[in-house]
């Protein structure tokens, strides 16, 4: 088991396109580490560089403190599960799982013992004599995972392993993978575009976009403190609502004002907008500028009076998910409760638990949970309320080299 560090790792194609640019991250021992991002963001390329299947254009890759850039895949002692499973079509399930052990010339009894124990763990003991073509998608998936974990590799790399399964099987395998990770206590690096997978499985998540690492953090940290608008929008389903606002200071205090919205803001927000945030990179005065308010669908609270409301919500579509409701609708100013709602505006989404009293025509007074609000700079997308300071890459690099 091992620690894997990437220092300023980049992948540059001949046409000058960066698939991955200056990726800096350390994956700790025993960690379930997820790389997530939209397609083409460089997440698979990053994984393949770790595996040795793609050459690293610049930067350093350390596996257990050893500079490994130029090691062949064979020399890295990693195991990988591929998106299409990459099972050897002419070999039986047993031979598929045993292949990497046979390569290592283990004694026959030992191979048999290990294959059996893995097959047992994954519930595929009955399939050992079948060929991959005779298996269902879920079974192939298990064989692929079995082939990877049978060997005592330094880390397990998984490239979108569940993306070819249907929704039900995927949910099942998620649980299975989580169980396996606990049991094997192994380092896992897992690439996915499915943020549900990432949120449920990961110890830490790295979000990428256009080859650039956006944020590396634990799931709830990402969820509650996204570094920018992209991460905020990518993590969480349904997506966070983004509402254009401006700040205003008057007799009643400091508040954020949108077309149909007025939210009282607390001191943290006030100081962030005024630029005296502790976050140095975000300093600057946003008092007169456009801002984007980010609110997750579950961070709305229906209130009983118009006076207490930040805005009125006019539902247009109700999605009944059983336990929850998703309400899609328009905002109406609480100051003008009978005004005409602007149907041309983007709808916002509100998630509610078992609310039986919602009808299509009601205008519901709503409050926003202030402590979960995010505030973004519309130009750079940066989150004014992000608590941390992005570290200087050079210091990080030095730290990693000393690991």
């Amino acid at each position, binding site marked *: 088991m091992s620690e894997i560090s990437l220092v300023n790792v980049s992948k540059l194609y001949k046409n000058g396109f960066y698939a991955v640019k200056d990726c800096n991250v350390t994956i700790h021992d025993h960690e379930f580490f997820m790389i997530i991002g939209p397609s083409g963001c460089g997440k698979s390329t990053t994984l393949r560089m770790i595996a040795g299947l793609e050459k690293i254009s610049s930067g350093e890759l350390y596996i257990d403190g050893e500079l490994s850039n130029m090691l062949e895949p*064979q020399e890295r002692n990693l*195991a*990988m599960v591929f998106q*299409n499973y990459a*099972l*050897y*079509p002419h*070999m039986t399930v047993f031979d598929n799982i045993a*292949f990497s052990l046979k390569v290592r010339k283990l004694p026959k009894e030992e191979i048999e013992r290990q294959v059996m124990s893995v097959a047992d763990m994954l519930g595929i003991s009955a399939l050992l004599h079948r060929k991959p073509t005779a298996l269902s998608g879920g079974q192939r998936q298990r064989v692929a995972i079995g082939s990877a974990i049978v*060997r005592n590799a330094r880390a397990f790399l998984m490239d979108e392993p569940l993306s070819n399964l249907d929704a039900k099987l995927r949910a099942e395998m998620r649980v299975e993978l989580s169980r396996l990770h606990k049991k094997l206590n192994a380092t896992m690096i897992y690439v996915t575009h499915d943020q549900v997978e990432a949120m449920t499985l990961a110890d830490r998540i790295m979000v990428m976009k256009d080859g650039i690492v956006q944020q590396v953090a634990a799931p709830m940290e990402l969820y509650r403190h996204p570094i920018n608008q992209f991460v905020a929008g990518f993590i969480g389903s349904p997506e966070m609502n983004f509402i254009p606002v401006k700040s205003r200071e008057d007799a009643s205090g400091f508040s954020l004002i949108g077309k149909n919205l007025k939210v009282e803001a607390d001191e943290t927000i006030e100081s962030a907008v005024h630029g005296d945030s502790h976050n140095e990179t975000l300093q600057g005065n946003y008092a007169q500028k456009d801002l984007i308010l980010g609110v997750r669908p579950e961070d709305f609270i229906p209130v009983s009076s118009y006076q207490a409301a930040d805005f009125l919500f006019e539902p247009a579509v109700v999605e009944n998910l059983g336990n929850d409701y998703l309400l899609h609708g328009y905002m109406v100013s609480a100051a003008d409760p009978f005004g005409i709602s602007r149907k041309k505006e983007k709808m916002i989404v509100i998630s509610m638990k078992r609310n039986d009293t919602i009808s299509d025509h009601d205008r519901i007074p709503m409050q926003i949970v202030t402590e979960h609000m995010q505030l973004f700079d519309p130009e750079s997308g940066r989150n004014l309320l992000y608590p941390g300071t992005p570290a200087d890459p050079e210091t990080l690099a030095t730290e990693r080299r000393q690991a």
Partner: protein
Amino acid sequence: MNHSSSRISRIRNVFSATEPYLYLVPSILIFSIFLFWPFFKTIYLSFYKTNKLGQAKLFVGIGNYKELFQSSAFINSLYVTLVFVIIVVSISMLLGLIGAILCNKTFPGIRFFSTAYALPMAIASSSAAMIFRIMLHPSIGIVNKLLHLNINWLADPRYALVLVAILTGWLNSGIDFLYFSAGLASIDETIYERASVDGAGPVRQFVHLTLPGLSPILFYTIVVNIIQAFQSFGQVKILTQGGPGDATNLIVYSIYRDAFFNYRFGSAAAESVILFVIIMCLTLLMF
């Protein structure tokens, strides 16, 4: 009025029922006249003694076949054909396989090389035979010059068959290259990636992944090659005329000689039927 419209609709019905067959008429006509009919006629002739014009004159039953299997010349011809086919198939498949493996990964100039490896399929057996004749010429041929030998290759029964087989193997290697290339291309690239992560080196990858990955197409290619090798004619006609002795008297050449030199059409027909049976068995093996 009513009457005529019903007639039109009847005609239309008849037309739409027969239309599918109309599209088959050209093919079926050609096949019937030049394949099925002569095929049955060949079978028919094989039971007869014929005159010089190829007319069936005397019914002899399986007499022609009996004679063939008792004639040492025909047995020799079968044996020569067998040896010939084995050499041809090995050579053509080996050449095709090497070419396909060399062109499996892209590198500068791959288009030129893959064209070169497929090129023999565009060359006629007669043209190739004439080139080989010069190459094997005892006094001026390049082969003797290179090897510092003085052998009359094609006049020597020890070499003639092998050399005609090498020529044929070369001719057939082009299409084999295409078959094997397609076979290699159909192997999923990621299993190589997985194998390299699993720790398997290039040699092991070749033995455990590439060769088994080719096995479906390998079988098909073998059968197609055997059938094609059985039908070699032009190169024998030009290089050796079946000789020296009967060293290169392949079945097809023997059919040609019996029919068009000795005018023993019945016997030649029986040989044709035997050739058909052999090829049919091989084809059925394929499915």
